[in-house]
């Protein structure tokens, strides 16, 4: 497959900065005592987070445009991506309401259906198919969660929509299980020990935070990722561990699904901002590419000597 432009790495890095700084660190910092000398630093951090969000959103628009061009030979696919680009651009003027909100979320579901179909067709093994399915289910439940109240409002039905909490919880369960599916794709025996060790950091940080103050951890989790932590907390810790190790392994070997995981994670669960939705869908698109797909034209480090594990991975 032809290498992807560096735009994708820039987008993933900017989206990651938006997620970790704007939606996580600056919000968590609300609860930290701030002496007078620290406040300018906090304000600077908040401004940098806003800059990262703007940069990520700008790259999101550009990447969507690139995708419309890239898929131009397929009218249907290009039309769907073009519609998403148009909706996101138009929503800067007027937030979609009523029937337009229904159409917008319906469009998201159509795109997810298309992407899942492509993922199943292009994946060379059942591991990636399973991982793509979990990702699609996670994103689709988030879209449905937003679509249903819009549907009731648009058509004047009596509400509220039933089983809303159950749908939300189903999606959160799918989000939590998705990293395990990618873990299987990455084949744990091929993951370096240093990646396992580094992955312990976020998992342990979450564990300590949860044990110290579960309520505040849950609030920060909702702000940062959209997850409510309703499942047993060890599941989230293990999921975070699996995701971290998998991403580190994939990035070192420059596999597309590493960048895809970062983009999808940056979008969050049941995102409300158009830019976050774009990150998640673009990440999902990366998953539909034949795996492994390099994301730059030339490796920055010598290509690792193929090992038995990597060649087996290539044949997934």
């Amino acid at each position, binding site marked *: 497959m032809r290498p992807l432009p560096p735009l994708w790495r820039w987008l993933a890095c900017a989206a990651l900065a938006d997620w970790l700084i704007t939606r996580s660190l600056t919000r968590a910092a*609300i609860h930290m005592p701030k002496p007078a000398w620290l406040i300018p630093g906090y304000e600077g951090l908040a401004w940098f987070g806003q800059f990262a969000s703007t940069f990520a959103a*700008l790259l999101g*628009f550009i990447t969507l445009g690139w995708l419309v061009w890239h898929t131009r030979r397929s009218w249907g696919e290009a039309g769907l991506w073009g519609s998403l680009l148009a909706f996101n651009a138009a929503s800067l003027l007027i937030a979609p309401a*009523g029937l337009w909100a229904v159409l917008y979320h319906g469009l998201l579901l159509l795109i997810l259906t298309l992407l899942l179909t492509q993922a199943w067709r292009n994946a060379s093994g059942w591991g990636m198919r399973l991982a793509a399915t979990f990702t699609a289910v996670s994103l689709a439940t988030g879209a449905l969660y937003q679509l249903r109240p819009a549907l009731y409002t648009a058509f004047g039905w009596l509400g509220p929509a039933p089983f809303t909490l159950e749908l939300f919880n189903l999606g959160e369960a799918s989000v939590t299980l998705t990293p395990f599916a990618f873990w299987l794709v990455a084949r744990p025996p091929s993951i370096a020990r240093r990646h396992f060790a580094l992955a312990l950091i976020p998992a342990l940080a979450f564990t300590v935070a949860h044990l110290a103050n579960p309520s505040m951890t849950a609030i920060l989790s909702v702000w940062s990722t959209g997850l409510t932590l309703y499942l047993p907390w060890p599941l989230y810790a293990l999921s975070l561990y699996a995701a971290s190790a998998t991403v580190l392994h994939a990035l070192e070997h420059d596999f597309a699904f590493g960048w895809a995981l970062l983009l999808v994670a940056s979008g969050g669960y049941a995102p409300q901002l158009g830019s976050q939705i774009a990150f998640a869908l673009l990440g999902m698109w990366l998953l539909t590419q034949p795996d492994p797909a390099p994301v730059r034209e030339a490796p920055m480090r010598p290509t690792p000597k193929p090992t038995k594990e990597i060649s087996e991975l290539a044949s997934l």
Partner: protein
Amino acid sequence: MKHPRLFLTLLMLAGLLTLFKVPLASSQGLTLMAAKITAALPVTDPAAAAWQQATAIEVPLSAQNITKPMFLSTRVKAITVRALYNEAEIAFLVEWADDTKNDSMVRVQDFRDAVALQFPLVEGQPFFCMGQIGSNVNLWHWKADWQADIAARQDMETAYPNMNVDFYPFAKTAFPSPADYADPNYVPALAAGNLFAAVHTSPVEDLIAGGFGSITSQGAAGQNVQGFGAWANGKWRVIFNRALTSKETADLQMSAGKQYFMALAAWDGANNERNGMKSTSQWITLQVGAPATAGPTTRPAETQQPYDFTGVLLMGVPMLLVTLAVLGLAGALTVLANFGNRK
């Protein structure tokens, strides 16, 4: 790095957009559509058939965790709300699950169930927790104990029916109790017009706030929000109603076809929730009937005006130019990226 100039150009563009606060993302939050009816609003009957004409939405709540006093394990997780309006009034029906009915504040260890609606008095969305300096909010606070007081005034003897008082000056009965004191001369809070001591004609207190710690009750003459609440089978159902327009400048003025922002908060008395220890929501959009103009507004209701072209131009033209610039740049950079990748 490949394409460093392109990268730097994009960084500079993002910096400019951040500096001028041009948003490149938007969201569609929850929208509550108030349905219009021609009859009188069912302001004392939560089970009235008229409420079925309004689409209900479920608003998630989370514990207030910005300022103390805070309590992170609040119990009310979601509220269902629907709205009706007619030519003169608007009414909201809010419902939430609560296993216990806490409608007494007589004992110091008891706390009431309550629910509140919050409306900004300025354009846009001020801080969702009680507004901020320069951006006041109008609050309608329904209290379960005020609701109970309307049926039968509660006092110490309600909680302690066998209480005995050694001596009450000027009491005429053999066994004096607070009920002996109907003369306001001996009930200074009532004489001073304290709303908490007054005979409640409405279970809703009308307040204004501009940030934490600034909440202020509107005067007795300004208490123009009515309400009704009933608890049954583990659920509270509370109705708020008020005229669409008000003479009070501290009140939100509403009119048909306009959009407003609204937030909700709830307290579970059995969980000792009170003051800032509550569950709150983010801002949701309230649409009073079919939209008549673009964008939300909290301006006072006026006589019918022509379409606000000026407002739309001032807001829309710059955004349109930015959008076109972004799309044009996206297209140009897409072409450049493809040229750069061709071998």
